[in-house]
């Protein structure tokens, strides 16, 4: 056991750029043979499509998720162009309904839910906890194929005319009146749900069973904590959606009647079942983003995350409370006043763990050694948009106010701020932060900063006018509207244009960097965490020898202090305990730091 393992410090020392990872003198002979990166481990298409390597599957997800992002984005562009004029002269009523349904279905189920967990979670969780792979590698590959199968069904729906119900498939429209292809669309979502469940299952078991020696629960990176909480929701909420969609299909195919009052059913029951999944689904989309931002902030501030335990616990708290708030979607749908009051209260409670995260990030940044790297700018953009989205969520959780703005553009703006402003910003932040690790090449800082700023500005120009529109009474899902709303709609569409450019930009320079970028060392951002101790891109089996963790996460200050000491770094590190670290924290150690910006360029 002991001769097979090594400490983090060994790995760090071995993987530093100056010593060189390929240098056989610093490592044992075994490492030299296993250093072939996962990207070069096989070149055939077969070696990609039949891989069980979590990193390759992450890349497969990255490609497919990007394709769906652009399909969904194209539908959104169509909507925004149509809304430029009050008459709605581009699309027919039916066409408009089908376009926003397509936009919603693809963006929610094929982009937002799988984006961060299935690409970055897949890629990073085993690396971060010191494991060779996820617990069930073949299941991981199967879940990608299931995802693709669901995607193919959606494409078939698209070709055969689409669906006009909105992504929520509300009854009785979906069960009785819709003339779209509801059954096929529900099947697509049903199938992609299986993929979610299997991925969640894999994450839960991996985090429980495959942590390397010394990686206790209190030392897990916050990214892993948030993915663990996400996985709990995926496993427990998705099956409820599956059965609900099966009931919808049965209702259409042979008149089940569960949601039909004429047959003794209850249409409100559909909304209960649907939102029991779909409200937690919002946290499936945003919790991984919160985990990403915790990592970006700690790396940007070069400080341990303030209140680590509270940030970790708040992920779990959000997951649990998220199951209890679905009724706030139904304040005006006819549920009892007392139920609404309880759901209103519980919805306000979710703000507490969310607030904990935001305040702790702020406290982490306080006196941090910050440089304006692209990942940091994306994280800042995330915080801004997430706070606006969260605070308007509080407005919507208030019973009386919700009656005024229910089903208006206010709601549209609110959830786009959380789900798109929040999640997509974090997604791009993660893409910029871990890109050198995934590909082994650095990318342009200047272009990264530009796209971060453009996304933030474009996003606000697109969606802030929608708050005003909604407050003034513009209902959602209408494409013929009163002329006085036109100015705000034109602003929103102009913002969408900026946003489109800002989203396309990263894909060009990231793609460019794959060939022309400077090689990244193992740790180009100077961050802590096991994923930065292996070469970039990581070798096929992640760790030649399984690491042993001896210290707390985000130990930025310790590392720099020991860089200042000559020689005895490793020995001192192995003895470092949490208590020692607390004593060391007060000392001024910042002079020893390298500015992260220098390393980026």
């Amino acid at each position, binding site marked *: 056991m002991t001769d097979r393992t090594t400490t983090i410090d060994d790995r760090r020392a071995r993987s530093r750029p100056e010593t060189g990872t390929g240098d056989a003198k610093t490592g044992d002979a075994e490492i030299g043979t296993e250093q072939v990166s996962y990207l070069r481990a096989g070149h055939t298409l077969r070696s990609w499509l039949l891989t*069980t390597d979590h990193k390759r599957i992450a890349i497969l997800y990255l490609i497919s998720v990007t394709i769906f992002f652009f399909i969904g984005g194209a539908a959104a562009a169509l909507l925004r162009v149509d809304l430029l004029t009050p008459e709605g002269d581009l699309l027919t009523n039916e066409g408009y309904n089908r376009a926003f349904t397509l936009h919603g279905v693809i963006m929610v189920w094929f982009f937002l839910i799988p984006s961060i967990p299935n690409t970055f979670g897949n890629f990073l969780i*085993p690396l971060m906890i010191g*494991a*060779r*792979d*996820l*617990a*069930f*590698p073949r*299941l991981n590959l199967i879940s990608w194929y299931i995802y693709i199968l669901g995607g193919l069904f959606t494409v078939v729906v698209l070709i055969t005319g689409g669906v006009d119900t909105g992504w929520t498939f509300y009854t009785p429209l979906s069960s009785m009146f819709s003339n779209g292809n509801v059954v096929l669309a529900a099947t697509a979502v049903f199938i992609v749900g299986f993929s979610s*469940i299997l991925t*969640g*299952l*894999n994450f*839960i*078991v*991996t985090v*429980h*069973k*495959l942590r390397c020696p010394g990686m206790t629960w209190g030392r897990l990176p916050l990214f892993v904590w948030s993915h663990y909480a996400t996985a709990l929701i995926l*496993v*427990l*909420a*998705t*099956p*409820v959606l*599956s*059965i*609900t969609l*099966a*009931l919808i299909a*049965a209702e259409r195919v*042979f*008149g*089940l*009647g*569960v949601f039909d009052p*004429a*047959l*003794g*059913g*209850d249409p409100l*029951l559909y909304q*209960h*079942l649907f939102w029991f999944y779909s409200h937690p689904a919002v946290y499936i989309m945003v919790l991984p983003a919160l985990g990403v931002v915790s990592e970006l902030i700690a790396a940007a501030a070069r400080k341990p995350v303030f209140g680590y335990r509270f940030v970790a616990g708040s992920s779990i708290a959000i997951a649990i409370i998220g199951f209890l708030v679905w009724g706030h979607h139904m304040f005006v749908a006819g549920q009892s006043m007392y139920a609404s009051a309880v759901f209103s209260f519980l919805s306000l409670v979710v703000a507490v763990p969310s607030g904990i995260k935001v305040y702790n990030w702020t406290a982490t940044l306080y006196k941090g050694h910050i440089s304006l790297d692209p990942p940091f700018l994306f994280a800042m953009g995330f915080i801004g948009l997430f706070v606006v989205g969260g605070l308007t969520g509080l407005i919507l959780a208030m019973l009386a106010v919700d009656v005024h703005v229910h089903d208006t553009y206010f709601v549209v703006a609110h959830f786009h701020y959380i789900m798109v402003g929040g999640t997509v910003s974090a997604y791009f932040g993660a893409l910029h932060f871990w890109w050198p690790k995934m590909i082994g090449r650095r990318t342009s800082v200047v272009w990264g900063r530009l796209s971060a700023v453009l996304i933030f500005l474009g996003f606000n120009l697109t969606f802030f006018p929608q708050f005003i529109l909604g407050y003034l009474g513009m209902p959602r899902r209408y494409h013929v509207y009163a002329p006085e709303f036109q100015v705000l709609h034109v602003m929103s569409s102009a913002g969408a244009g900026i946003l489109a450019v800002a989203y396309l930009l990263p894909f060009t320079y990231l793609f460019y960097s794959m060939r022309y970028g400077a090689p990244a060392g193992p740790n180009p951002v100077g961050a802590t965490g096991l994923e930065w101790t292996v070469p970039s891109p990581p070798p096929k089996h992640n760790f030649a020898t*399984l690491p042993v963790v001896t210290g707390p996460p985000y130990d930025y200050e310790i590392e720099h202090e020991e860089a200042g000491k000559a020689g005895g770094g490793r020995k001192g590190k192995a003895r470092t305990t949490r208590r020692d670290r607390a004593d060391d924290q007060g000392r001024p150690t910042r002079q020893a730091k390298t500015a992260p910006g220098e390393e980026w360029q």
Partner: protein
Amino acid sequence: MTDRRVDLRDPYARPHQQHSADMMGMFVFLASEIMLFGGLFAVIFVMRRLHPAEVVAASMRLHLWIGGLNTLVLLTSSLMVALAVHTARARRRHAAAGWSAAAALLGIVFLAIKTYEYSIEAARGLLPAVSVPTRFSGPVEHLFMNAYLIATGLHAVHVTIGVLLLAWMALRLRRGMLPLPGRIVTVEVTALYWHLVDVIWVFLYPVLYLAR
């Protein structure tokens, strides 16, 4: 400890770790199955709350004793599966194969009885989507029978999957394709799945048949 011959799969370093991960994965999967049926139970409870008297009247039309017999069959098959695990742990692979085959057989008996029950209901015009002249006393009875068909149908799909798994496992055990102390987890995990199918029926039976 015992010398376990295990084919260690990729991410694992120790047999014990692999075994406990496999078991945990199965438990998490079963939790998601419970949530799947949980949605159906919610539907049945809402129905009963909206129309208490009609649902009780509709429930009276179901065949209490056929359902009871099926409960007995399924519970017995669960015992067989437990015995299969027990004998597999004792490395008696032929006995384990026998017990799993017996459990699979009882699963088939369950499906046969269920089909017979469906056919009686279809003949009386009570089975939605199958009976050609339907003879429901009212919309609620129709709705109840719909929910009954969906719930028991979904359960029957699970029983079918379980029967196939058990039969395949019996075959592999008999031919020695499952090295016994090493791949014991396959037997345990299949048994867990079968127990869950059984437990779901134990809840479906009172909710549908005994709710009178």
